[in-house]
Structures are given as structure tokens and as C-alpha cells.
């Protein structure tokens, strides 16, 4: 009875009948030939929307993921199947591959993030391996078919879109372009030639971005891409090893116009491969891997053949001299260096000399060097080892002004693993200490900080600089007076330094009573941890827009003018879509936010390169939130970018706001944001 609506096709399907042209017969023969290697992939669970990364105008783009089956291609008889990473961008709970109606549990083994390729493994033999069409035998103009399984089950023929090859070596040489209709209907499926051989795996690709969904906006447009199967087979062993292949980077920024100018080094980043190999600003790269490059486009095309961890030979020109560099090992876009940390926390509102240490992380760099709470740091500089015979370095002396701001600047100049020299005053004795700075990725857990030790302000007595804001629940508007924000200022928000939490409510939960609920929940913590809570109101039912940034910035500025806000503890905090907005602002408003706390949300629009600001992340997810895997993966990618990220897990919870334990964790995390 369940299939009562199914229309049993009482007509058989044309197969090379009637007045069919030879080309149509050829198409059908080719499709039938390759069809057994084209498999159906079903998924369950996963998040509802996926991020497409940032668009050309820097907007955050989200896409609702379809519910249907997707497509893969058998490339090896031991159960190896290639597909597009787009098909799994929503991090599904379960993946099942159907071959001829037989179903097999599959897992993702490796990915190539530069080409949106994913390799799946199933535990049965797969003898129907697709035959490869070498790129050298392809040419623009030849007829090709794009095959997919979304519209057809694993038992019927795959869907077919016919077109021609529009170009080879597109998108930095990574893709074959076709005018066949490429869309989620066939992403992961094959682009097939008339001989039934697979030219490439269909993927969304974009010259602009590298996210899993970048390029989807071109679906069905007549501009579609596939990654040559020949290339995929070359990287197959690496993918089988479980590698996530990323771009290989030299650690240089090129100078000038990417379309017009030659590949001249603008900056060779300190500590990264090119600089370590002796390259400098102004060097002109003339060949990559033995191939001459005359402009930046050619340079990028040659570089796109390599992945991080690969070794490349370079020739560069300095003045009239050509220099060869052999076997330079490439790093990934975001070499996970983390942030340089000493493992100390300064006392706030301190008027004494230098920085008074409030707390030292056990086993941190400073602890191992013998620093303790109560010590004062009077000066700091990166420690340099100079070549023998250089004049002696003058001793470190306290500069006229040295406080938290100056210390933060000094920390910005060093990378983890480098040495730092401090002038420390301990029990009245001054001494110089040098030690290696550690990397922080938020893996150590939260520091054990007592909020009552945070400030050095005496209870009594105002300073002339003190502000006298209205306290409690207040509201204000933006300059244009068409948007409203609310805020809660604890008593003393004008005296002691306060952190600032900017709350981004979920869609439809921005009414006055919703915000009052948030204040009720937070009020005790706001007083205890000395925090101001700012709550801009979104006027759209659908939630936050990127265009709300100006209004939000204005409201932050208003609070900064009103209260004594600690620039080292400004946090964007949100739940669900509000959490995504918080993540967006963290990356886009460089230097303003020191932390992003996203609850039940997947931070999107991660930058390609590690940001240079000291941004940190706090993520929270319920262990039954269908986004759990995606949120865990975000933590990994954030750390991959060198961004410290703490993940708070809530047992027995789905996608929901913080419980009281979570709220306490968040507050402790914020309390540690000004750690050095």
C-alpha cells in the first residue's frame, strides 16, 4: 500500500530506436557503459544550511542543503569512491552508498579542499571501476555528458546532461569547464566522453573561494567544472592515507596586480618556508617545478599542482643573479602555530609600574621560567641571538611607559617557539629572564582565575578619569535613530575595567522581553565578572544581516564612551544564527573583538589565512545537536588557522542555549581573554 502512488511505467524506454541520430546513440552507449561505476550516496542528519564562504563582496553566504541522494564514482576495486566534498559539507551523521540497490555504510577517508573532492570507502569490493580519459586526449568542443544519481535510483540509468568541453585547465589549471548543466543533481558524478570514459569528477568550484560550497551559485548556468580524474588518481594514495589535502604555500605575498604583474615577492613572511630558504622582498620568481612563470597567473597555476607537505623546486632572480631553491617544503595556508602565550594574567586597574601578575598558568612558559603571581614585568622584548662578533646588546631597561597595551604589542611581534626577554621585579629584586614562548590553541582548558583578584582598585575613592554612566538596563539608538540597542551596566561600570559582551539573539528572539530574559540569566555573572552586556536588536524576522555591522559598531562605540571597557575583553556572543553573526563580526571587525562565543552555531566565513589579531573562540554544542560533528570540525579548522578555540559540550542537549555550567565556563573563558 505504501507504493500506491508509484506509477509503474508501462512504457519501455527508448534505447537506440527510431530516427535517432548517431550522436544520440553514441551518448546512450557511453552512458550505459559508465553507469555501473556511478553510485548513489544517501546521507542522514547533518546541519540544515552550509556556508558557502565569503562572496566577492565579502558577504556571508548560506545555502540550504537538499535532502536528496548525491553521486559518486568508483575509482578503485577495493571499495574506493570519489565524490564532491560539497555533498558532505553539512557533516552528515551517516553516509550510505547504494550500488545496484545493495547498500553499504561508507565513511569519508580523505579530502582535497582545493578541489572540493572527497574520497569514500565502503567495505565491499567494487569491481566496476570507471575508465579514465586522460586530459591530453580531451579538447574543447568535444561532446561530454554529466551524470548524476539524485534524480534516479541506483537501479535506473543516471540522469544525463549533454554539453561540450568549454575549456581545459580552468581555475588555476584545476578544472575542466563544460557547458553541460552541473548542479547538486550531479556534483560528485562523472563528466564522461563519448567513449564512456570519465574525464573528471563534477564539483562546484569558484575562482574566488575555496569553501566546500564555493561556486554553487553557478549551478545550471552553462559554466560547470570537473576535476580531471587523472589528477584525482594521482593524489588517490594520499587520500587513501586519510590526508586532508590543502593548498601548498611558500609563505610569501606577491607584489602588484595579480593579473598584470610578474611574480615578485612583496613580503616573505618570517619563519615561513620562502624566508627560511633565504628569499627576500623584491626577489622575482622565474620558475616553479621546472616550468617558467612570467606572470602571477602562471605562478598560481603552477603552484596549484602542489599541496602542503609537497616539495617544490624554485628559481628566483635577485638583481641579475638567478638562484635555485631545491626541495622547498610547502606549508598549509594556516600553519597551525597558535598564538604566542607566556601563560600569565595581569591585574587590571593597576597604577603601579609595569604589569602586576595576577595568576600564572601551571606548566606555562612563565611558570617554568620561575615567574609567580605578585611579580611585576617592567619591560619586554623579543630575544635575539646575534652572530658572533656583533656588538653586545644593551641591557633591557624599563621604558618610560610600560603597561598592558605595550605588553600586548610586544607579544604581537613574536611567534610561538621564539624567545622572549622580560625584566621582572620579584620581592623588590630586578632580574632579566629569557625563555621560549609557547603556543596556545585553547587545548589546555580554562585557567583557574578568581574574579575577586582581577582588579587592583581600592573600594573607595574615585579617579578623575572615572565615568558616571547610568547603570542597570538602559537603551539607546544608532545615529540614524532607526535601530535600538539595550544594555545592562553593573554598578561600577564607570570605575573598574569591564569586559563587554555583545549579544546576538537568534532570529525572532529580539523582543524586549526576550532580552530581559537574557539579562535575568546573566545578571549575577555580569556583576561577578565585571561585564557590560550590550544587546543590539535585529529588525529582521530572518535574523542578522551583514549590513547590520554599522549599527552594531555604533552601539559598541556608545558603550565604550559611556563605561570603562577593557579593549582586551570585548566578545561577540550569539546563539544559533546569532552565533554565526558573532563569528562573522569576529573576523570582519579586525582588532575590535578579542573573542567570539557561538552557541549551537557553526562559525562560517573562516578566513583562508590565520588572522593576525589575537582572536579567540568559545564554541558550545549539545551532544545531541545534529550540528555536533560540524561544530567539532569548526573547532579543528579554527585551531588549524592558529586560533585558540575552547569547545564546551553539554550532555543530554540538542541545539540549545547554555546551561548554567556552560554559562560559568563562558565567563571563565572571558575572564582569561586578557591573558598574555
Amino acid at each position, binding site marked *: 500500500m505504501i507504493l500506491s*502512488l508509484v506509477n509503474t511505467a508501462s512504457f519501455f*524506454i*527508448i534505447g537506440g530506436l527510431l530516427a535517432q541520430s548517431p550522436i544520440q546513440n553514441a551518448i546512450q552507449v557511453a552512458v550505459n557503459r559508465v553507469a555501473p561505476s556511478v553510485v548513489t550516496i544517501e546521507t542522514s*542528519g547533518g546541519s540544515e544550511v552550509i556556508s558557502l564562504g565569503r562572496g566577492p563582496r565579502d558577504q556571508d553566504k548560506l545555502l*540550504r542543503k537538499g535532502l536528496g541522494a548525491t553521486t559518486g564514482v568508483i575509482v578503485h576495486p577495493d571499495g574506493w569512491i570519489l565524490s564532491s566534498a560539497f555533498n558532505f559539507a553539512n557533516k552528515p551523521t551517516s553516509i550510505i552508498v547504494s550500488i545496484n540497490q545493495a547498500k553499504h*555504510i561508507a565513511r569519508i577517508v580523505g579530502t582535497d579542499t582545493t578541489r572540493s573532492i572527497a574520497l569514500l570507502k565502503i567495505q565491499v569490493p567494487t569491481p566496476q571501476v570507471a575508465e579514465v580519459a586522460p586530459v591530453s586526449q580531451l579538447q574543447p568542443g568535444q561532446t561530454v555528458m554529466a551524470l548524476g544519481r539524485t534524480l534516479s535510483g541506483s537501479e535506473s540509468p543516471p540522469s544525463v546532461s*549533454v554539453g561540450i568541453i568549454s575549456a581545459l585547465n580552468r581555475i588555476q589549471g584545476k578544472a575542466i569547464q563544460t557547458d553541460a548543466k552541473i548542479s547538486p543533481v550531479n556534483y560528485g558524478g562523472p563528466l564522461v566522453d563519448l567513449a564512456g570514459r570519465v574525464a573528471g569528477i563534477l564539483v562546484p568550484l569558484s575562482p574566488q573561494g575555496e569553501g566546500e560550497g564555493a561556486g554553487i551559485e553557478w549551478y545550471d548556468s552553462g559554466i560547470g567544472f570537473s576535476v580531471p580524474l587523472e589528477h584525482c588518481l594521482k593524489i588517490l594514495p594520499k587520500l587513501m592515507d586519510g590526508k586532508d589535502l590543502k593548498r601548498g604555500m611558500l609563505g610569501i605575498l606577491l607584489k602588484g596586480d595579480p593579473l598584470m604583474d610578474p611574480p615578485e615577492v612583496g613580503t616573505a613572511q618570517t619563519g615561513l618556508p620562502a624566508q627560511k630558504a633565504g628569499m627576500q622582498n623584491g626577489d622575482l620568481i622565474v620558475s616553479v617545478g621546472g616550468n617558467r612563470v612570467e606572470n602571477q597567473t602562471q605562478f598560481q597555476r603552477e603552484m596549484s599542482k602542489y599541496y602542503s607537505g609537497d616539495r617544490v623546486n624554485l628559481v628566483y632572480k635577485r638583481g641579475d643573479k638567478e638562484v635555485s631553491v631545491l626541495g622547498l617544503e610547502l606549508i598549509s595556508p594556516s600553519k597551525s602555530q597558535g598564538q604566542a602565550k607566556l601563560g600569565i594574567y595581569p591585574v587590571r586597574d593597576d597604577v603601579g609600574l609595569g604589569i602586576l601578575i595576577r595568576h600564572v598558568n601551571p606548566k606555562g612558559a612563565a611558570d617554568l621560567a620561575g615567574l609567580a603571581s605578585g611579580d611585576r614585568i617592567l619591560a619586554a622584548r623579543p630575544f635575539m641571538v646575534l652572530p658572533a662578533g656583533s656588538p653586545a646588546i644593551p641591557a633591557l631597561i624599563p621604558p618610560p611607559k610600560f603597561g598592558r597595551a605595550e605588553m600586548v604589542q610586544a607579544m604581537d611581534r613574536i611567534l610561538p617557539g621564539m624567545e622572549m626577554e622580560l625584566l621582572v621585579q620579584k620581592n623588590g629584586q630586578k632580574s632579566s629572564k629569557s625563555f621560549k614562548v609557547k603556543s596556545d590553541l585553547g587545548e589546555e582548558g580554562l585557567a583557574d582565575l578568581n574574579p575577586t583578584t582581577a582588579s587592583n582598585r581600592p573600594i573607595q575613592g574615585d579617579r578623575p578619569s572615572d565615568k558616571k554612566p547610568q547603570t542597570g538596563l538602559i537603551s539607546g539608538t544608532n545615529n540614524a535613530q532607526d535601530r535600538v540597542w539595550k544594555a545592562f551596566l553593573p554598578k561600577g561600570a564607570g570605575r573598574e575595567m569591564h569586559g563587554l559582551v555583545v549579544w546576538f539573539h537568534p532570529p525572532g528572539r529580539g523582543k524586549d522581553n526576550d532580552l530581559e530574559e537574557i539579562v535575568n540569566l546573566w545578571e549575577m555573572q555580569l556583576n561577578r565578572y565585571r561585564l557590560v552586556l550590550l544587546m543590539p536588536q535585529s529588525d529582521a524576522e530572518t535574523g542578522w544581516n551583514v549590513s547590520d555591522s554599522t549599527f552594531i559598531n555604533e552601539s559598541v562605540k556608545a558603550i565604550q564612551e559611556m563605561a570603562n571597557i577593557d579593549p582586551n575583553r570585548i566578545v561577540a556572543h550569539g546563539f544559533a544564527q546569532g552565533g554565526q553573526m558573532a563569528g562573522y563580526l569576529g573576523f570582519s571587525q579586525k582588532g575590535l573583538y578579542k573573542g567570539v562565543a557561538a552557541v549551537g552555531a557553526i562559525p562560517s566565513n573562516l578566513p583562508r589565512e590565520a588572522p593576525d589579531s589575537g582572536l579567540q573562540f568559545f564554541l558550545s554544542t549539545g551532544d545531541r545537536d*545534529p550540528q555536533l560533528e560540524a561544530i567539532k570540525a569548526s573547532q579543528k579548522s579554527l585551531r588549524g588557522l592558529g586560533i585558540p578555540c575552547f569547545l564546551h559540550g553539554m550532555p543530554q542537549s*540538542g541545539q*540549545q542555549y547554555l546551561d548554567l555550567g556552560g554559562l560559568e565556563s563562558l565567563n571563565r573563558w572571558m575572564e582569561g581573554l586578557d591573558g598574555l
Partner: protein
Amino acid sequence: MRLHFLTLVLFGGVVSGLPGQESLSQVFNNTYPKVVKIYGAGGIRGLAGYGTGVVISADGLVLTVNNHLMDGGDLVAHLHDGTRVPVKVLAREPELDTALLKLGGAKQALDDLPYFDFEEAYKKPIAGPGVSVLAFSNAFQIATREEPVSIMQGNIASYGRLFGRIGIFDIPFSGNVYVVDAITNNPGAAGGALTDRNGQLLGLVGREVRNELTNTWVNYAIPVQAQVDVRGPNGMSRIGIMDLVRKKESYRPAPKVEKPVDVEPYTGIRLVSNLIDRTPPFIEEVFPGSPAAIAGIKPDDLIVYVDGIPVPSINTYRELLLRYKPGDKIRVDVRRRDQLVGLDITPLKALEGSKPPFRIPLITQPSGGRP
């Protein structure tokens, strides 16, 4: 983003034909006069006030899609030669998403009106993936009066049930359709002709709809041979467009007997909380002695298929379960660690006081932490 790429093969364009095949321009010249432009009420909620129809008889029978245009009345058709005639709606068949119209006006207006031979088209086999096709329609109302309608070329991408495959989505037509790889389904194109390379009618160009499987726009046509099974007073009947054309009336099933309440039969499975639209159907608890327990279902199993139909979420599972009666056998495939296990559940009558499943709204609300 939706891109409208029109491949307009211009009237009189030179396309060399294959041996035994008419040139594309010959096919065009012979076929476009069989397509009429339809005008009616529209403009509400962005819906076009124009559409397309195909002529299927010398006396002016026209087939089109049963869309909003049919609601308005006062329909007018522009014939290939620019003649304007009133149109009468003879019958609408919601089950087939098709409407049968009759061209009116002065008798001589319809003299020598070219038409598709529907009987002959009906006897032809279904076209398979890869077959080259042409679509004739008044997309975007580009053509007016005697101007020829637009022609696009593409290929059959697939033949089968579309989003209706799972049977739970909002779809205008649940039978098998042609999906084509050209962007044919544009405003005003619904009811146009999908033909093979020789101008033989294959189907009616469908509406503009988003495909739930991929969340992208999909271009489909309702085949001439379209059939669906519908429940009538005497049980199930199979009806097709041919029935509509021959009887000139829609199949009128007796008013549906209101089922008391749509309650899923008792399996004894409690799933995890359904928090968002795509919560995977993990089993939280199996009540001892219940049909599920007897079948061998265990807590923490993940339901992946119900009678072979993929179950991506709890919502899908709930809607599928409503289709079963107590005593039916339900084949359930569950994922248990790294194994797929197939089990048969024979559900019982729903427990007293069971309520229809509650479908949660898309946006979830904070539950914990908020006093």
C-alpha cells in the same frame, strides 16, 4: 541565484540536418504553429498572467498545465497567425496537474489550425536519458500575437519521479516526469510543448518549482503518457492524460472520507528529541515487548531506510509511518555501529490517546538555561 539562459534558435537559422532527419529550422516551422500563447489573470504574488498551451485537435482542443491561470477565467489565446480567440476551460485534472481547454471564437479562425497528433504521441515509447529534445513555449512572454514562440534545445536528463520519490514533499504532480537539462521552466513556459528532435510531442513543460532533493530549480515536463493511481469510490484507479482528452472531464473521486485522526501505528519506538528540521532518527528507547522489541530494534540504532525509502530525518520518518496500518509489515534498515541491519516490524493499533505527530517549527528556541 537563478540564471535564465535562453538558447534561442532563430527562425530561419541554418542547421544542417543529419541524413533522414529534417533540419532544425524545418522542425521549428512545422511545430511552433501548434503552440498557443494563453493570457489570463495574473500578476498576484509575482505569478505571470500568461502561459502556453499545445493544440491537440483540429477543432481546437488545447492541453496546458493546471496552474493559477485556470483559476481566473476570461482566458484568451493568441494563435500562431496572431488570431485572438477566447478560451474555455473544459476540464481540470489536479491529479495530473493538467487542464483541457477549447479554443472558441469564429469558426474560420480555427481553419487549418496545425495540431499535434496526440493519439500517435501517446503510443510512442518513453524517451530515455540523453535523448535530444526541443521545448516550445512563450517563456517570459517574449513573443506576442503572431510572433513565433521561443524554442530551446536540450536533452532528457532523466525519467522518473522527482521530489515525489519520497512522496512527502509539496509537489504539483506525483507521477513520472521528464527532467531536461535546459532551463525550460520559466515564467509563462508551463503548458508548452516538449518534443523530440523531429517535433513529436513528448510532454507538457511543467511549472517553476524548486526540487527538495537538491534545493535547486528543476526543469521538468509532464509526459504525454503520464498516469497516476488515485483512490476513488471503488478503490484505486489509474488515470492518465489520455482519459482527460477522451472523456473531456476530470476523474472525480468521491469526496475523501475524513479519516478520524492521522495516527501512526504503535511500534514501541521512542526517538531522540526532534529539535531541528534534520534531526537524524536515532532510537532513544524501545519499549519491552513492543513490536519493535520483538523485531530486534535496539536503542541507539539509527533508522536509515523504511521499505527502501531513505529517511534523512525524524520528520521524514514520522510522515512515512503514517502510511502504515496496524498489521502491515514494515521493513526497517537500521545502522548499528558499522552494520546495516534489516528488520521487519509489524506494528499494532495506536495506543489510546495518541496524538498526531507534532511537526516542530524550523527555528529552534533555546530551552535549557532560559528560566
